[in-house]
């Protein structure tokens, strides 16, 4: 029984090996290549009306926090970069993750997970920081993933005050049709910790 089964297995293996040899090294990933090329062709053949639509709405950068998709208006952003290192600040609320040094400038980084009451990411999870223009300074927001830049029609947004779906409504400007949550930048920047720092910053120069 076993020997016959082994013989069958070895026979099929030999057959497949023979097929590999016959196909040659170049044709080996032809299926994959075909699929890739097909996907690229589809993307290139995308209709232009997408760009026109984009121009009509406001441009936002979509990102992810704890498997939730959020977005920020592109106009109020200054920079995105990987979050490599930060220094926690003692005596501050939990939602202030810490401070980071960007090209010699000390910038605060907020922890949106803590702010929104979400599950914090794991230690090994790779994170990015989105810097938001805040007057002359910039405030970093930690996110778990960057998606893409897209345009949103402000008229199509749902007001969370009306829908009342239980989210922390203070920082939400609106929710898109595909459950994309557009965050309200001024509300985030109006946090006490930032105001304090802002008061120091404004008084210093």
């Amino acid at each position: 029984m076993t020997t016959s089964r082994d013989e069958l297995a070895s026979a099929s293996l030999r057959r497949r090996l023979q097929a590999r040899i016959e196909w040659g090294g170049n044709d080996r990933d032809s299926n994959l290549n075909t699929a890739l090329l097909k996907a690229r062709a589809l993307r290139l053949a995308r209709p232009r009306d997408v760009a026109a639509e984009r121009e009509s709405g406001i441009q936002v950068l979509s990102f992810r926090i704890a498997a939730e998709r959020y977005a920020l208006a592109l106009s109020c952003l200054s920079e995105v970069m990987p979050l490599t290192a930060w220094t926690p600040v003692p005596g501050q609320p939990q939602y202030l993750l810490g401070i980071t040094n960007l090209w010699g400038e000390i910038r605060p980084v907020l922890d949106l997970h803590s702010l929104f009451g979400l599950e914090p990411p794991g230690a090994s999870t790779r994170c990015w920081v989105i810097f938001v223009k805040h007057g002359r300074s910039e405030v970093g927001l930690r996110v778990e993933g960057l998606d893409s830049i897209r345009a949103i029609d402000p008229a199509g947004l749902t007001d969370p005050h009306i829908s009342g779906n239980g989210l922390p409504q203070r920082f939400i400007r609106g929710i898109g049709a595909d459950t994309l949550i557009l965050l309200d930048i001024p509300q985030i920047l109006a946090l006490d910790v930032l105001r304090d720092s802002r008061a120091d910053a404004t008084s210093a120069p």
Partner: protein
Amino acid sequence: MTNAAQHSLWKTLKLRRKFAVISVLATAILAGLIAFNVTVLRSQSQYSLITDMAGRQRMLSQKFAKEILLVGAGVTMDAQSTLKLLRDSLGALMDGGEIIANLDTGAKVTLPPALSVEIRNRLAEQAIALRQYEAAANAYLGLPASDPRRPEKLKELLTTQVQMNDLADSAVKMMGLYAASNISSMILLQVVVGVLFALIGMLISRAVGHQIAEPLEACSEAARRVAGGDLRIEPLQVSSSDEIGVLQVSFNEMLSSQRDVAVQTRTVCDALTAASAAILSSAQEQAAGTKQQAAAVQEITTTVEEISLSGKQVAERSRQVAGTAEAVATSGNAGLQAVRDASVGMEAIREQTETVAENIITLSERTQAVGEIIATVNEIAEQSNLVALNAAIEAADAREQGRRFSVVANEIKNLADQAKEATSQVRGILEQTQKGINTSVMLTEEALKRVETGRERTTVSEHVIRQMSDNIQESVHAFQQIVGATNQQQIGLEQVTQALHEIRQASQQTAITTAQLERASLDLNQLGQKLASTLERFRL
């Protein structure tokens, strides 16, 4: 010596001695009688001699007278010698002495003196007459022949001679009378003595006979009673110590021993009857047992024949199995060779599998290198994406002036996304490849292990097959031995069957014998009862 002592002495004597004493006594009496007779006959012969001699005197006197006459006639004769003889004889007859009995031979006899006075007187007269005759003769002869007185003288002489003859005759007659009277008295004496001794002998023999016969009769009576079965009689009185006494003692001993024998015989007879009854019951039991034995022997014979039949089948089967086992042994050798070939093949497979494992490991390392490169590419794509995002942000910041730049940034981001997508796809493929390689490595290791196991198993199989082959070889030997043993068993069973037949015959014979024994024990039992009834006759 007293009478009682004599009696006891007599009693202590043996019968033989007694008879010897009696015969000695009888012989003595007979010898006495014979001696008496001899004496009588001797005296008788003396009388006849004397009578002869006396008669011769007459003849001599006549002879003398004749001689005188002859001398007177002138014939020379020796008359003197005759005269002398006449005188001597006469003297011997008178006073005894020797005398010439035979004139021719000159033999002499001795004569006794005269038997009686009368005879002597007559002889004396005869002597006187002789002297007168002598004187007359001398006177005659003195005259001459021519003398006329001579015839006178002769006449005188003759007268004297006649006178002398008469005297001699009378003497002879007297002697004869004397002898006759003497003989008759002797005969009387002998008759008297003989009758006396005969009487004494009768008395003695009667006494002795009484002494012998009485105890013998008592003994005979006792023997008759014993013969009649009466053993309760008193023992005999021992009367003497001779053979009769010995006979009585012996009879008493015989009686007591007979009694003992009777008692013992009765006891033994009872025991014999019991034993014969036991023998009879045993014989009957034995007869029953013999029948059972015969039946059992029959069953055993049947069983042994069945065993013999099954033994034949066993032998046949063993032969077949031995043949099969030989074939299996041949197959086992072939299997051994095949297993050795398999072992060699396994070794080759192991080497090839090791090569395959090395190749797969090399492939895995290369795949890892490709993965690292892909990670680098992904990192570059990430950076590009970030750059594109920042560019878009910058373009948005520049508003109308940045609109075109925004498009470029968007394109860059698209490219970065595509690169990222491609790298993620490559990573997925690489991961799958790596998984496949890992699986292959594990499978190769498994294959190596299996090959190793297979080699071990092949070794074990070789060992087992060799052992099996050996065992089968042993089995073949064993079966051959079984075949041989079964054949021997067959022979033995045939012998057993034969022996069982003999046993059956013997048991039949035993049955017959047992029946005879039964009959014999029955007879014995009856004989014992008969013997017991016979012994009842003995009154103890």
